[in-house]
């Protein structure tokens, strides 16, 4: 069994329901995220478009975080999930340095590394990851990549030529796919990231108009 994820970016509407579901399910502390949706605005007014890209751990077949972890806190489960044992983690942050997707962070409460585990605890109880359940448009598709009859395998088969992974040149072989993605959504260097244009850092007060 090899579990994998696919996000159809053409369906995602940026509601952030998956983010909230993940936060609640996994008790992710404030200021940290196992899953987040990045907004990138494309074009020049009035010809503009907003794109939404859910970002989470890619559960790579050749995971740099697993390789660099000195104590095997990051390890593979039999179903292909790259899991983390927070009791074993020493907080060296090697995995934070190694992950090419910026998917790992140091949990401020436990002072250990943390990341998306595809809700491994829910999978063990035959439930879907919380983000999949929360998505109102079924943009998140989850399943067994080794099973040709699974939803994810059929989705990949029916969208040949339009299935991408992030940073394939890194040789990590992600088990997280995107349909309908492009350079500006999947390549962090392809979009301008200005100071203060981010709701979660510099911008603390929204102007109130209309009074």
């Amino acid at each position, binding site marked *: 069994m090899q579990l994998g994820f696919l996000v159809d970016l053409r369906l995602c509407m940026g509601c952030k329901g998956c983010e909230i579901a993940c936060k609640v399910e996994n008790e992710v502390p404030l*200021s940290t*995220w196992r899953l*987040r*949706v*990045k*907004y*990138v*605005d*494309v*074009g*020049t007014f009035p010809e503009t478009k*907003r794109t939404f890209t859910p*970002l989470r751990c890619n559960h790579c077949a050749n995971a*740099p975080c697993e*390789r*660099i*972890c*000195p*104590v*095997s806190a990051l390890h593979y489960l039999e179903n292909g999930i790259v899991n983390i044992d927070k009791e*074993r*983690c*020493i*907080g*060296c*942050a*090697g995995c*934070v*340095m*190694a*992950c*090419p*997707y*910026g*998917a790992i*962070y*140091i949990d401020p409460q436990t*002072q*250990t590394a943390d990341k998306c585990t595809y809700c491994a605890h829910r999978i063990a109880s035959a439930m879907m990851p919380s983000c999949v359940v929360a998505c109102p448009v079924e943009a998140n598709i989850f399943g067994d990549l080794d099973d040709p009859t699974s939803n994810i395998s059929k989705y990949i088969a029916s969208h040949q030529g339009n299935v991408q992974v*992030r940073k394939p040149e*890194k040789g*990590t072989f992600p088990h997280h796919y995107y349909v309908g993605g492009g*350079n*500006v959504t999947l*390549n*962090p*260097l*392809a*979009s*301008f*990231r*200005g100071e203060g*244009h*981010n*709701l*979660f*850092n510099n911008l603390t007060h929204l102007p109130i108009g209309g009074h």
Partner: protein
Amino acid sequence: MVHETIAATNAVVTLDVALPGVVWGWIITMNMWAKSIGTGIIFLAFYLLKKHPEQTGFIRFPVVVISIVFIHIFLFFTVIDLHQMFRFWHIFFYPHLTSAITIGAWMATGFVGLLFAMAYFIYLKKDEAMYDKLLGWTTLLAVPVTLYTAGLMAQSTARELWQMPTESAQMILAALLAGSATMLLLGGNKFSDAVKKDLAVVLGLAAAAAFILYMAELVFGPMKAEEVAAVLHYVKGGEYTVMFWIGQVMAFIVPMVLVCLSMKNKSYYLLKIAAVSALIGLWVSKHVWLVIPQLLPMS
């Protein structure tokens, strides 16, 4: 970071989480700097005791003390950088042998054991033959202890700037630079002119070779990968430009120039200034190279 943006798309990130700060900061710089001195002085001691045994015998005890002190500074900063420092023992009881951190920890432990054995034989037993025998093994083990950080940086797949084999060459050169500088400061005028000349040559050549590597990265690095090009903007007019050049000048250019002048004037004072400059500059240049890849957004 706007490296690959094009006017036609005018793509702007309008909502994302705040970028994480620098995770490996000055504590890791201290770690690398202290380790360069701790292993470098062993390399130089091995060389001097082989080539000039009559004139350098007095360095045996001070060398092992300096190495023990700086390796423990390295270990101290390694441990305090851990977010769960009291779980450090997990490395020995749950070792993951694909990790350069694990290999480094085991090698460093062996290295420290040999250093204490050397100290025992030279201080308590006055047994120079055994000391010299152990020094051979210690020098051998100093190589992986020096190199493991380069392996760790190379395993950091996300940080394209840190690549093998460049980083391994830089680590060895840093050890030779720091080792020769420390030895020059340690030996003082007790060294003969021939020994001083040898140390000056090692210092000058290590500085020249390291400087060439940095400049090669600066010029040719951007041709390897987009990430490298983006990262190098921080030292090409970006916020770390001044610090980068302070490091380059103090660690490499000043020692090269002063070594040349001291050869001509036979001035030991110039060598001492070169040594101090190299040690300070090495910290600065290591710090810049450590920090800048961490400023790049990964997602």
